[in-house]
């Protein structure tokens, strides 16, 4: 009986003490990230969060004289949890889009990468030839419609994978007439592409290239053009609650500095093997 009482008291105390009260000053910034989106942000064999955005976030926090704390959050709840106040900023390979701007605001873009289709070399799609090397969705539909319809014809009725709540899912819903499969994480979509459950996936080039470096991804090949603009957004930025304009200003300034002195290019070369600074 005494033990039970002590346990209950202990439980109540531990619950209350874990309710940290955050104040309005940005001396401490909590950054939400996914941890399953290589090379942007992922978990290594030591169980640590690593990746280009983790390095960048630490650099930005130094410039802002703030202490950074990383919070892991599954992708499909990453915006609601920001709005709920679970963390203050999203840095999770999230593209700045008009659709998301209805709910949250974004810092200036810190990295930018096109999207592309990937398949395996045993799939018929691997021989797909596209006339154009790029597909800029900002351009007039008279320019883009030909490329889109040739992609569509090649993939008609096939199983195509995207991750849930991404610009790629939006693209597929808007332009493609395929059997769409939505995955909770890029990692799990990778597994299904390699297993042959899906014929192709549409994703960010950096994420796919890091799969292709591994032994299980050696048969993965790309096809079709580099796709960007339009509903794919203007590049990757930090998601911030709409009310926190002061925090957005701090991030914009720090990102501009990091871009100007080559820090972003350096981090990008390290993780993406190419320069994707804006």
């Amino acid at each position: 009986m005494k033990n039970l009482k002590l346990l209950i008291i202990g439980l109540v105390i531990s619950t209350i003490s874990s309710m940290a009260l955050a104040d309005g000053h940005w001396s401490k910034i909590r950054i939400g990230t996914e941890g399953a989106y290589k090379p942007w942000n992922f978990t290594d064999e030591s169980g640590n969060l690593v990746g280009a955005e983790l390095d960048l976030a630490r650099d930005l926090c130094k410039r802002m004289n703030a202490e950074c704390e990383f919070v892991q959050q599954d992708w499909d709840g990453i915006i609601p949890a920001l709005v709920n106040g679970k963390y203050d900023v999203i840095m999770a390979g999230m593209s700045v889009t008009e659709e998301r701007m209805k709910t949250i605001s974004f810092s200036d873009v810190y990295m930018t990468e096109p999207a592309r289709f990937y398949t395996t070399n045993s799939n018929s799609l691997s021989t797909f030839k596209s006339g154009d090397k790029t597909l800029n969705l900002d351009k007039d539909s008279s320019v883009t419609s030909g490329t889109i319809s040739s992609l569509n014809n090649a993939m008609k009725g096939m199983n195509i994978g995207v991750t849930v709540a991404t610009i790629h899912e939006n693209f597929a819903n808007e332009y493609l007439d395929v059997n769409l499969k939505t995955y909770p994480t890029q990692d799990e979509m990778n597994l299904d592409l390699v297993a042959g459950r899906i014929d192709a996936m549409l994703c960010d080039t950096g994420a796919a290239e890091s799969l292709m470096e591994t032994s299980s991804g050696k048969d993965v090949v790309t096809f079709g053009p580099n796709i960007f603009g339009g509903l794919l957004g203007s590049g990757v930025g930090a998601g911030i609650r709409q009310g926190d304009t002061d925090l957005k200003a701090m991030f914009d300034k720090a990102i501009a500095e990091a871009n100007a002195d080559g820090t972003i290019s350096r981090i990008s070369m390290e993780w993406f093997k190419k320069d994707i600074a804006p």
Partner: protein
Amino acid sequence: MFEVFSFGSSGWGDEMLMGALMTVLVSASSLLLGILIGIIFAACKLSNIFILKIIANTYTTIIRGIPELLVIYLLFFGGSGAVMYIAKIFGYDGYIELNAFTIGTIAVGAISGAYSTEVIRGAVNSVHKGQFEAGKTLGLSGYGLYGRVIFPQVARIALPGIGNVWQITLKDTALISVTGLVEIMRQSRIAAGSTHEPFIFYTAAIILYLVITRLSNILFDKAEDTYSKGFISKGAL
């Protein structure tokens, strides 16, 4: 094949074990919270107050009728909103952060509590009416009656049921990876995705759960033996 489980910075062995420890911790705290909830709502169900009965029945019906995954999502996204709403009433206008462990405990505890409610209610019902009457005749009431006479008997009868609730709770914690808490399930998903070796990591996770199940079965059996002292053999109960 097994180098992926090496300890230290080159393998996932230590991470998987830490995940197992987290599973045990969050299951245990959820079970305790659930028992606390169970005691309160069992008392409501057994009370003669109509409104309390309705509240308790609504709670157990909803929890048992909605998928655990949805309950966890609802508490995860709605929970901090609710806490902030309450804080606002008391004049605090800011963000209140509940960490992943706390929110996970609350979510799984709420589910566990519905099952504990039924177990405890059943146990109280099975205590012979004569025990209450005898206690009252002796002039006992309140803590004297319930704490010294009824509770020890309820605890003994409820123990096997709580053992079942523990099994359910342990498995339900696999669903709270959505809150970001790194327990067995989340850790093996991360490792499976990162190494492209899902088979071996999900097998390892299965083994970890079975080991925890086996060890906790032994503990509960021991506890049942201790509490059943002075009663006829377990088989007769």
